């Protein structure tokens, strides 16, 4: 590759990324402004120093620590469970080539296809019947179903191209279906699983609508729902919203940054030869 192209490409990419991240800069700038500054200078001005009282007040007002814990709990549980369910489904559909796999795929994908508004009233009535209304378990179950739909689809597409030789080698070594899954399929598809895990966590973390409907008591609510407190009927607290948004994003971003190292680890290659 031409040596001269290198700085050009890097520069273009960096410019692009900065452009993409500029809204974040806006959020950050407004997060540390005092409401006075915001009212006088508008959202696009730079703050005069750091005003952190808004964040502190908000944290105490909604007991943000508790909300972080709730979000983490729910997002984490869903991520784990959904990956497990996805792997099981995809194993059967992609590798096992179960009969009617096409119909099954559509069946599982259905969870991802339906608009959430359509599900709310029926799920509300069903959860009331079993006493799970206003419970985090209900939210975890629902999102596991929804996220694993995507996971099933992605993984079964990936597993459909799984190198047959490895499965046969395992079979020759006397491994049954479960062992093959655990010892061969899962390790090799680990990058895909990590991607799924990361996506599921972040997607569930940011879910607003269903937790809003199902988590009524304040002590069960998640971060996005708590953020909604700041948006009143007619008035909105922009600086605190920005501040709390940053607080809310940080865990998801940290999570993503940590896990994307796993994404970079190369998968075993050349073993087929």
């Amino acid at each position, binding site marked *: 590759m031409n040596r001269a192209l290198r700085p050009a490409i890097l520069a273009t990419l960096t410019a692009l990324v900065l452009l993409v991240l500029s809204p974040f800069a806006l959020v950050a700038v407004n997060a540390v402004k005092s409401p006075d500054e915001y009212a006088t200078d508008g959202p696009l001005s730079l703050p005069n120093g750091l005003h952190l009282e808004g964040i502190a007040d908000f944290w105490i007002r909604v007991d943000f620590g508790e909300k972080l814990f709730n979000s983490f709990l729910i997002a984490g549980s869903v991520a784990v469970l959904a990956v497990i369910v996805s792997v099981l489904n995809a194993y059967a559909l992609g590798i096992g080539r179960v009969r009617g796999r096409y119909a099954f795929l559509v069946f599982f994908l259905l969870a991802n296809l339906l608009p959430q508004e359509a599900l709310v009233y029926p799920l509300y009535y069903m959860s009331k019947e079993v006493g799970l209304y206003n419970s985090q378990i209900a939210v975890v179950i629902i999102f596991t*179903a929804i996220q694993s739909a995507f996971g099933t689809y992605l993984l079964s597409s990936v597993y459909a191209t799984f190198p047959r030789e490895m499965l046969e080698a395992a079979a020759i070594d006397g491994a049954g279906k479960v062992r093959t899954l655990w010892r061969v399929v899962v390790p090799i598809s680990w990058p895909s699983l990590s991607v799924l895990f990361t996506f599921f966590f972040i997607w569930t973390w940011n879910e607003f609508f269903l937790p809003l409907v199902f988590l009524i008591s304040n002590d069960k609510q998640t971060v996005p729902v708590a953020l909604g407190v700041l948006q009143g009927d007619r008035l909105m607290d922009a600086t605190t919203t920005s501040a709390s948004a940053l607080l809310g994003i940080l865990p998801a971003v940290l999570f993503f940054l940590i896990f994307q190292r796993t994404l970079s680890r190369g998968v075993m290659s050349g073993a087929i030869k």
Partner: protein
Amino acid sequence: MRSNRGYAAFLIPGALLSLVVIVVPLLMNVGISFTRWQGVGTPEWIGLDNYTRLLEDENFWASFRNIIFLIVAMAVVPTLIGLVLAAVLFDYVAKEIGPRTASALRSGFYLPQVLPVAVTGIVWGWILNPSFGALNAILTNAGLDGLAKNWLGDPAYALYSVMVVMIWFQVGYPVVMFMSGLQRVDPELYEAASIDGAGWWRRFTRIAIHQIKPEIYVVLVTTTIAALKIFGQIFVLTRGGPGNATLVPSYFAYQNFFEKAQVGYGSAIATVLALIIVVLSMLFLRIQARDEQKDAA
């Protein structure tokens, strides 16, 4: 030669979950679409009235027209951009500059997906504000006053503005997916190809794109479906306005469900939307399955 029977057992947990959480509510939703109901009390059966009303509702047709544009903005464009970015990052940046730079750039592109939707709306409202938004401020300072439009308030521009925001939002997802898929490509294949005299472009299109076909299909299908279902961003950016310039089916359904308390009508909208999504997905899956069969052959 492999017994396919034992594999069915692995489907049981997923199938049960889907049945209870998705299929049953779906059927209930279809049932409600034949009634008039305010969410509390007993629904009143009215047969196909909701559906006939839908066909005459100009908002309904407008919402689907807008969706076509959003599919371009959320599926087609991000996938194309994502492919190029992923290839450049994976093939070039990671190799020539360093994998950590590539990772950092990838994280940067993905970050818009992590921002809560409510905040996305507020921030883009600040950027696109016609009087003192960042975009118009920059345009005016650069002497391009004429280009400083009323981005979210003018029906001529609103949908396009939303499309740009959605591209911004969506581009990181294909990048992550494709880069993960590109890791599966056997470098030996590249070497063999370059020995045969193939340049970077040919190696990219013949080998890389071919190998990450599963990811490409998944990305296309899921982004299209996401576009069909889009709700949150419309809610915070324009509330479907001005007029119905940015109205989308999910938001239209939401208005009926929760603001007008016309749950039956809302269910009808949701059912139609779900039907369209299911049909489209089945089409996609068919195409993908046939493609896989061709490859296996």
